[in-house]
């Protein structure tokens, strides 16, 4: 089963959908793939089946509009399909639970979004500790509040969003623990005031909700540990300095809770771009490593484009604009649009994109990792959740000579489990940098090989039956 297209878009969030719609509107035969059941990505996540009569907030309305526009277009839609391999040229391999497909196109647009970053601390693997992005998924698509008494901890704009959503839904936020101090938020106010009044007003509404519900906010504090027997029961909170390290001589504050929403910002998902050989650069203020692109989203690989937060975390307002720019650039690459026409079409989009990106860039810079944060990780803390690899094991491997993430992975198995290193490699890189004279920009992301994501063997061998194998008669004895 193989189908040919002009353009394939991987990722069905706001950037990917805008790219696909723009490509189709130029007459390009376009396929969009996403593992979600419908378009929307994480920010405009569709409600789960059976949910009705939802209160209409801005994100719900934007998501419904995006899905309606996609349904009205000529874009071929493949949702509920997980992309597990992409070959140069480009061939995109995807699976559902029980079948496999491939599709080919001379242009590929990656809109693969982000992955959440964490500072691993003792107990972060306990059930009940979930990501901040996970909490938004529960709230948006399931209309479920993660606990009765929730600690919301980490850094960045998801803290007030998640906390305000919980209290508005009738839950209790036991505390917001923000590793940034108040000044770090205030320092960004001028940039925010000159960007999006609408988004700033939204932030102000979250803050007033939190004040009205008297939610305790521990600014300049971080989680030192989570505790519980079979699930999280309490969080220990420590004051931290400007570099994120615990201030010496302070006893932890203990906060009882039945759930924790935890996260230290979002990083671009670069696996697919890296698999295809795109050069990546470290851009810490935009979330970390990202594929190197020109101002049209073109990577170093001809025909390969990156848009949305997967190319640098700039937020949902900027994402559709970067998607449209990438799609127009792809049309030009395919000879379906002249260079002059391309420039005429993308220059207003680029202007709007730069304006929309200012707010997102200011928010993402709140989550830039700080050198001192690794001081929150004691040696016996699990860093690699899948393989149970501790900080002590990683430090030992570095002491024994590991200087790259690939070496560290071979020596310790860190990053070799089913999440494919998505939740540990970022910390591992920082641990290498701390123990060596290497800059973080010298510790390149780990090599990527297929499968990009776990794939059930049954899906790849769909239709195959053991009985159907031709078996020669055994030779006579």
């Amino acid at each position, binding site marked *: 089963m193989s189908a040919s297209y002009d353009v394939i878009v991987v990722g069905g969030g706001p950037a990917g959908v805008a790219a696909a719609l723009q490509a189709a509107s130029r007459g390009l035969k376009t396929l969009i793939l996403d*593992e979600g059941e419908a378009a929307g990505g994480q920010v405009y996540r569709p409600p789960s089946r059976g949910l009705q009569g939802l209160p209409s907030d801005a994100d719900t309305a934007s998501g419904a509009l995006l899905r309606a526009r996609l349904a009205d277009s000529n874009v071929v839609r493949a949702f509920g399909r997980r992309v597990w391999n992409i070959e140069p040229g480009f061939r995109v391999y995807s699976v559902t639970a029980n079948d496999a497909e491939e599709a080919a196109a001379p242009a590929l647009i990656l809109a693969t979004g982000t992955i959440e970053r964490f500072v691993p601390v003792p107990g972060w693997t*306990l059930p009940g500790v*979930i990501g901040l992005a996970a909490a938004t998924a529960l709230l948006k*698509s399931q209309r479920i509040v993660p*606990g009765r008494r929730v600690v919301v901890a980490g850094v960045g704009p998801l803290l007030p969003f998640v906390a305000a959503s919980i209290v508005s839904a009738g839950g209790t936020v036991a505390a917001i623990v923000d590793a940034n101090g108040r000044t770090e938020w205030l320092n960004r106010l001028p940039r925010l005031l000159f960007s999006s009044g609408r988004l700033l007003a939204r932030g102000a509404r979250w803050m007033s909700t939190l004040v009205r519900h008297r939610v305790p906010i521990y600014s300049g504090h971080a989680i030192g540990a989570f505790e519980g027997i079979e699930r999280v029961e309490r969080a220990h909170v420590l004051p931290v300095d400007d570099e994120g390290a615990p201030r010496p001589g302070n006893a932890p504050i203990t906060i009882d809770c039945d759930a924790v929403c935890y996260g230290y910002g979002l990083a671009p998902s670069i696996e697919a771009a890296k698999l295809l050989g795109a050069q990546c650069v470290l851009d810490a203020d935009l979330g970390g490593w990202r594929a190197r692109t020109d101002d049209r989203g073109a990577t170093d690989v001809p025909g390969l484009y990156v848009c949305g937060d997967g190319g640098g975390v700039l937020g949902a307002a900027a994402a559709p604009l970067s998607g449209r720019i990438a799609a127009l650039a792809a049309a030009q690459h395919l000879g379906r649009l002249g260079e002059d026409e391309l420039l005429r079409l993308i220059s207003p989009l680029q202007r709007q994109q730069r304006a929309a990106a200012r707010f997102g860039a200011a928010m993402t810079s709140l989550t830039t990792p700080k050198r001192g944060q690794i001081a929150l990780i004691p040696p016996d803390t699990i860093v690699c*959740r899948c393989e149970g690899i501790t900080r002590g094991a990683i430090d030992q491997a570095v002491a024994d000579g590991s200087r790259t993430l690939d070496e560290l992975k071979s020596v310790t198995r860190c990053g070799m489990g089913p*999440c494919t290193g998505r939740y540990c490699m970022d910390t591992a890189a920082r641990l290498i940098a701390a123990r060596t004279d290497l800059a973080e920009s010298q510790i390149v992301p780990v090599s990527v090989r297929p499968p990009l994501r776990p794939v059930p063997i049954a899906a790849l061998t769909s239709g195959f039956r053991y009985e159907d194998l031709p078996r020669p008669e055994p030779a006579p004895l």
Partner: protein
Amino acid sequence: MSGFRIENQVARGRLVSFTFENVTLQAHEGEGLAAALSVSGVLSVRRAPADQGPRGAFCFMGTCQECVVLIKGERTESCRVAVREGLEVRAVR
């Protein structure tokens, strides 16, 4: 104590029964399995192979693989499966 469903203004699918490790639980048809388990108080769904620690849903978006369970013998991310009547769910051993 555990998570709870927002009731105000929200209509849900009909209530159906499903099982986890032969214990019968109830949830709304179409609800995400990981979310339904968590609201039912089932947070730990497996033991980590390396450290034997309890694990449960962490990313709720199909990435972390912490919420993997067995459905008809297949390893399945419970955050990417919808609850339906009679669904039988086992823990990964």
